[in-house]
Every structure is written in C-alpha cells, then in structure tokens.
C-alpha cells in the first residue's frame, strides 16, 4: 500500500518537474530557443527514464523488505497448518528428543592449610570462588530394548568429558537376556558400595569421603565395561551385580595414559529391608580386583556398607533421617615392595528438621589398617537450605587431623541447581 503511494508521489513529482521546466519555454517563438528546448526535452526524457528506473528499483527493494518483515508471523501459521506432514517430510521431529537436564555447581572455599591454598580436600574446590562443574544429562529410550543415558561434565578449566555414557536393557530379542536380569554397557560409575555411584551434585556432603578419595582417586571409580545385575527370588530385595571393567582407575590400578589397562572384575550384593513404613535398612558387600599397571601385580578392594533411612510417609516433605556407613579395605601390590594396604570408613548422619532444612555430620577415619602416610581423621558438619528439589545452598565446615602433617580447617559453600526435565530420585 505504502509503496504504491510513494511510487505515485515520485511519478507526480517527476511530471511536475518536467512541466515546470518546459512551461517557461512555451512562450518563446525563436528557432534557437526551440532547438534548445528540443535538446532540453531529450535531456528531460533521459532524466525521467532514469527516475522511473530508480522508482522501480526502490519499489522492488521496498517490497523485498516488507516481505521479510512479514515473514515471522506468516511462518508459524504455515507451520501450524501443516505441522505433522511438514516435520515428517523433513525427517525432523521433536517427539523423540531425549529428556535433558543441566546441573551446575558453584562454590566458595577457604582452607587453613597453607600447602593447599590452591586446592581444598575436594579437588574441584580452590580457595576463593569456584565454578565447580556443569553437567548435562540426556536420557531416552533407544528402542523397545535399550535405554540410554549420557552425562557430559564440564569442569572448572572448561575441560569436557563424558562422565557416563551407557545403555541398559531388561529385555533383548530372542530372550538373550534371562528374566529378572538387567544389562549395562558403556562407561559408568562402577557399582562399588554406595558413595561411588553418585555424581558430584548428588554427594551428601560437598566433598567425597576420605576413604573413597584414597582408594579410587579424585574422580571416583568410573570405567568402560559391561555388567549384569540379577534380582534374586527372595522375599526381600536382594540384587547381585557383576561387572567386567577396563581397569583404568589411576588410583587403584595405578594406570596412566601410557599404561595398558588389564581388566578388572567387580561384584556387588545389595540387600534391602523394610523395617517399617518409615524405616528401611540396606546392607551391601562389594569387591573389585584386577591386575594393575605396575608389572601386572594385583590390586583389590573390599567394601561393606550399611544404610538406615527414616522418613515418616505422613510428613514425607518435612522430616527425614539418613545414617550411612561404609568401610573399604584395599591393597595395591607392587614389584619388590611390601603390598601397600589400608582401610578406612566414614559414618554420616543427615537430618531433615524442616521442609527446607537439613543438618548433617560426618566422621572420616583413614588407617584401619594403617596406610603408608599414617592415620587421618576428619569431622565435618553441614547445613543445607533446600528451597526446592531443584536447588540447594550448602555450607560445610570440616576439621582434619593427620599423623604426619598439620591439622586443617576448611569451610566450603556450595550452590547446586538443576534445570530441565524432572529427574527421578534414586532411593
């Protein structure tokens, strides 16, 4: 509409210009003047031709601009009119996208130990403010047989890695999988004990227990491998898990980037009892063993865990208590050295005293039996404000005593937040 008006206006102006320039000459009779006039008219004609061309060009430009401005409202209308056929024709549809959630851990820390000013007991924590970790999780059914889970973690240095990436199955074609059995393939946290299965944002305290850190290292025991787990036909919940793993763990298998992993085997037996509607008891045993990178000698670890949980169903969002204990014994044989063995435990108590509040305590003991670098004990306490199941603010204080080093005081503050698809909560 506008373009048509402006085009007419321009044409009108051009005509007026021609008329004005011609008009004064009309009264003159002289031949020379007529000649000059003829000349002027040809010039005018050329100018007018140029103007009309310019007008057409402008008109085209305007139309093009107006067209693109109109596009956004027009496109969704087309899309809704033909959603299904359009998307399938392109082979692109959102329906089968995986459920996605993103978790962020942001923290601040302070340590009294001058030697560890760069690093706190949790390796992802440094003195001052830290971006601990961001984790992206993708979950979806692959087909009727497999369910896939990918967890990508980006650490404080911006280094990204596949923390876990695995598929699970409860049923395969031709009944390849026996009943009551599930299969897991990929890279995953090995099923050793309780704490090793947790991602950093699920830790009950901000840092790992000392014994887990000592035996499995700063990253925990996560390995490429495959596993079967079988539900025993007992009246209570009893599950046997066997996993064949690569044996890449730097701490337990002394593996490095140059060394060749020699394989490891893991077994876990989990038993679970309902004491009452509100109280449950879980008892588990774990074992892992495999040849390590130092001359193919043997490394192994044995674990025991006991967890009691209390949560009255009538006040499921307001009251709860978790008492969790784990003991791990390990040995890492080396050439020409006495086998370094050791053991340790932690015992933690988490109490939810109001809808949004938790208060927690943990005792860590390293050195039963004694390790090479002596006995360590640590006392930690934590206060958590949990505004919803998607966010938490936690403040932790811990005091560490060591046989051959100075005692350390540490304070850590952590913000934990999750966005995206609603995650189901492991018990």
């Amino acid at each position, binding site marked *: 509409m506008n373009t048509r008006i402006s085009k007419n206006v321009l044409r009108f102006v051009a005509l007026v210009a021609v008329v004005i320039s011609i008009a004064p000459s009309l009264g003159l009779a002289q031949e020379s003047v007529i000649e000059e006039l003829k000349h002027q008219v040809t010039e005018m004609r050329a100018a007018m031709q140029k103007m009309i061309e310019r007008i057409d060009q402008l008109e085209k430009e305007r139309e093009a601009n107006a067209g693109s401005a109109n596009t956004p409202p027009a496109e969704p209308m087309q899309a809704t009119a033909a959603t299904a056929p359009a998307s399938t024709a392109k082979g692109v549809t959102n329906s089968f996208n995986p459920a996605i959630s993103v978790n962020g851990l942001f923290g601040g820390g302070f340590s009294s130990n001058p030697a560890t000013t760069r690093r706190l007991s949790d390796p992802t924590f440094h003195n001052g403010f830290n971006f601990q970790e961001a984790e992206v999780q993708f979950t979806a059914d692959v087909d009727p047989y497999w369910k896939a889970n990918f967890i990508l973690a980006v650490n404080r240095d911006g280094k990204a890695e596949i923390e876990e990436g695995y598929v699970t199955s409860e049923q395969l074609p031709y009944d390849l999988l026996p009943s009551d*059995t599930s299969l897991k393939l990929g890279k995953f946290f090995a099923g050793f004990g309780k704490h090793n299965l947790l991602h950093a944002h699920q830790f009950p305290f901000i840092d790992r227990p000392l014994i887990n850190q000592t035996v499995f290292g700063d990253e925990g025991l996560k390995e490429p491998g495959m596993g079967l787990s079988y539900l025993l036909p007992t009246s209570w919940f009893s599950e046997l898990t066997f996993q064949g793993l690569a044996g890449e763990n730097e701490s337990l298998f002394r593996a490095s980037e140059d060394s060749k992993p020699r394989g490891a085997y893991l077994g876990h037996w989990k038993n679970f009892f309902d004491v009452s509607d509100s109280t449950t008891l879980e008892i588990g045993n774990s074992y892992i063993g495999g040849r390590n990178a130092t001359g193919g000698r043997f490394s192994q670890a044995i674990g025991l865990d006991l967890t009691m949980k209390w949560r009255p*169903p009538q006040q499921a969002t307001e009251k709860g208590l978790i008492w969790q204990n784990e003991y791990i014994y390990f040995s890492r044989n080396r050439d020409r050295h006495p086998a370094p063995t050791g053991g340790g435990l932690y015992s933690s108590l988490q109490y939810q005293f109001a809808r949004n509040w938790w208060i927690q305590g943990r005792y860590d003991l390293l050195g039963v039996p004694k390790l090479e670098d002596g006995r360590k004990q640590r006392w930690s306490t934590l206060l958590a404000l949990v505004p919803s199941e998607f966010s938490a603010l936690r403040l932790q204080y811990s005091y560490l005593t060591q046989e051959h080093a100075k005692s350390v005081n540490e304070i850590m503050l952590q913000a934990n937040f999750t966005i995206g698809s609603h995650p189901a909560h492991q018990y």
Partner: protein
Amino acid sequence: MRLLSSSVLCYLFLASSAMAAQPVPVVTTTTDIAAIVKAIGGDHVAVESIAKGYQDPHFVEAKPSFVRVVNRARMLFNVGLELEVGWLPLLIQGARNPSLMVVDLSQGVSVLEKPSGPVSRAQGDVHPLGNPHYWLDPRNGVIMARRIAQQLKTIEPGDSAYFDQNFTAFESDLTNRRKRWEEQMAPFRGAELVTYHKEWEYLIKWLSLNVLGYVEDKPGIPPTPRHLEELVQTMQQRKVKALLASNYTNPNVPKSIADKTSAKLVMLASSVGGEESIRNYGDLFEAIVGKLAGALK
C-alpha cells in the same frame, strides 16, 4: 489372521484356566486405584498399592522393596499426568519385568487445568499435562473402573464375565451414592472456600463449589507472608467458611489462617486409607462430603 488371533485367545484362555487358582498379581501407584481394582477384580486379583493413603503421592520414595513388588506384578495401574514422575520410572526400570503391562488411567478422563501457554518452574510444581488429582470426582472413578475392567480382561479373559459383573455392581452402587452425596451438598452450591494445594479441583467442580484462593500461591512452594496476609483479608471480607487441606499437609500454616478468619479448617483424607475408616473408594467421598457439609453449614 483370524486363526492366529483365535489361537492366541485360546492359548490365553488355557493359560488363565491353568492358573485360575492363583490370583493375578497387580500393583497400583495409589490406594484409590487399588480399591477400585479390588472392587472389580475381587479375589481373582491380588492387588498392592505403592503409595500409602496417608501419603502425598508426589513424594513417594523409590524404595527397592517396591522394585520387588513391581517385579512380580503382571499389570501396573498408575494415575499418570506426571504425578508419579519422581519415583515410578525408577521402579519400573529396576523391576526387570519386560512383560509388565503399564496402564495409565488418565486416558479417558477429561483433565482439568491443562496449561495452555508455556510452563516454567518459576510457577512452582506445575503439571504440564494438567491436574492429576482426578480420582477426587466419583464420576471419574467410574471411568477408571471401566478401564480397569477392560484391562484385567486382557490378562484374564476367562474371568471377563466376573469382571463385568463386578463393574456393573460398582457403577450402580457408586452412582446411587453419588446422587445422595450431591443431594447432601446441594444447599452449599456456589459456596466459597479456600484450599491449601491445588488438589481439590475435581471435587470442587463436581460439587459446584467456588475456590476463592489457595494457601500455596505456587503449587508445592511454601506461601509468602504477603500472600497469606492478602488471603486472610479476602477470607475475612468474603466470610469464607471452610479452608480445605489434605491430612498430610503440615497443619501449622492453615491452622493460623483459620484462627485469623471465620473459616473452619477441614483436614480431609485425599485417598483411600487416608483415615482408618476409609476402606474403599465410596468411603472416601462419604468422609469428604460428611466433613465438608459439616463445615459449610
């Protein structure tokens, strides 16, 4: 094709008659569904509910002992609409029971409060698929029962007549009682009340009551003092007679509101088993209607 289906039916019939003595193990997520399954399946079905009647079904824990129960079941009935999203997926996955039939009972129910615009967690625990508390309208109970009967027939076709007969009895009994409850509540049509959580919408729509506001201004999130102040003012102005909360709600906040206004706090069981005397689906409404009528008088 016909030969195949008839041979399958024949096989199913033989299989079911061979196991006729054994009741079919069925698991449900809530006690209300379990009560209806029991009414339809009678002693031919052994039903167990995961959630307790006095428990908020949003916050059930995925205990491994429930994995054991789901592992042994042949059929699982759930409420759906993401009510059980925080715990049921883990139980089904852990159960290692690929032959389990999972039946979402929200299909066939006309769902209220389906968000039409985009949803965000800033709005609290919104259910993107709509309000899941639909069992709190007895007319939906009949829809659920019909579906349960249909589904039980697929695993026990030999008992079809038995399930049909039980369904007819359930429907006529519930319809008769519903008419009585409606008569009992007729004088209170349009009565204004306030509820704690957004879980009574189906009940309120059925009884033509009028919700003036919620204690939780965002579902699942504790209310702000400012919101409570405004709510108390509104309740005083409109002389609201009843404040409804389910009996697993912490009574402190609703009690303090009731104290400041003329409203009576009515703590209701929202599921079968929520009170000891509520043993079946009809009992649930008997208790709710009794208490509501008492408070609105």
